[in-house]
């Protein structure tokens, strides 16, 4: 799926990156400091012009995890159909990564969703508000310490009776 010279060029430019393969997928882990340079390199030099997805994983209970949150950037090249996964890690108490909206407009809502669900801040994002949950919501539900059934928010409404209608 990915040309060997692509990954060789990437590793030559970013020696700190950790490269791994799993079932035909190429993943690289970069430090959060060089995330933007790595993505810019992939976009401008190696033609990864499509940002497929931005998501996050909370490694609170994960075996052998060194960090709390992992950010995942899935990139694809429209012309050559290459794919690469770029990952980076951040930690509590204020998980922050630089925003990639300047690189891809499409990252806008994806990053807002990650903020909504995980509480990871994106520095430089033009409009970092909650997107799926109401503004009044306080928790970040996809964190592993938030229960599946929530904390009672779903039943926190007035009740209408027949006579009041």
């Amino acid at each position, binding site marked *: 799926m990915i040309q060997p010279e692509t990954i060789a060029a990437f590793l030559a430019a970013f020696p700190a990156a950790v490269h791994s393969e799993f079932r035909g997928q190429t993943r690289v882990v970069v430090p959060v400091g060089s995330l933007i340079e790595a993505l810019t390199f992939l976009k401008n030099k190696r033609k990864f012009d499509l940002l497929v997805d931005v998501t996050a994983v909370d490694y609170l209970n994960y075996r052998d995890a060194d960090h709390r949150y992992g950010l995942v950037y899935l990139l694809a090249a429209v012309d050559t159909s290459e794919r690469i996964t770029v990952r980076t890690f951040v930690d509590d108490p204020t998980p922050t990564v630089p925003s990639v909206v300047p690189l891809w407009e499409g990252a806008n809502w994806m990053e807002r969703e990650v903020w909504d669900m995980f509480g990871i801040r994106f520095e430089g994002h033009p409009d970092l508000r909650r997107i799926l949950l109401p503004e009044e919501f306080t928790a970040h*539900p996809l964190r592993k310490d938030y229960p599946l059934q929530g904390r009672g928010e*779903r039943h926190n*409404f007035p009740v209408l009776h027949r006579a*009041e209608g």
Partner: protein
Amino acid sequence: MAISVPENVVVSRLDSLASWCRKNSLWPMPFATACCGIELMATGASRHDLARFGAEVFRFSPRQCDLMIVAGRVVMKMLPVLQRIWQQMHEPKWCISMGACASTGGVFDTYSVVQGIDRFIPVDMYVPGCPPRPEQLIQAIIDLQDKVQHEGTITGREFGTRSRQQTKRALVDLPIITLPWGMAPAPQGIREN
């Protein structure tokens, strides 16, 4: 003393007549949120043809409707909207909770899905299924028509009794979340979405 009536005159109670008119002219308000909404569309579309049962006049304005069909799961951001629309409908009005999600939350026992709309608004008829087949919805409408007939209008106790009005609050003692609804102005300072 026997009163003779002509052959083309039927004697009935006014109540029964009014109920009969009402039950055959239900105007549904499709509150279609999710999958059940597609089945609701299928019920109204070519093959199943809800018009055969006198309830096909879907109106999207709550003020013109007397039957609300809640099709699909209702989540906490949507519930205030549901309540607002229910309050905008005129009496007499009925509500069908279509599908497992609207009735009980269904498979979505999660933080954001309301576990049954009957916790927050009155419901007359529940339709099981995920989603229910169009035939099930039609059966529910027929059953509701029976209910309308038997309930009565003038002597009906269902509406108008203010004594049962209670201010029950939520199950959990938290401050009420107020959500924006209706014509809220655009949030300031938003550039690009």
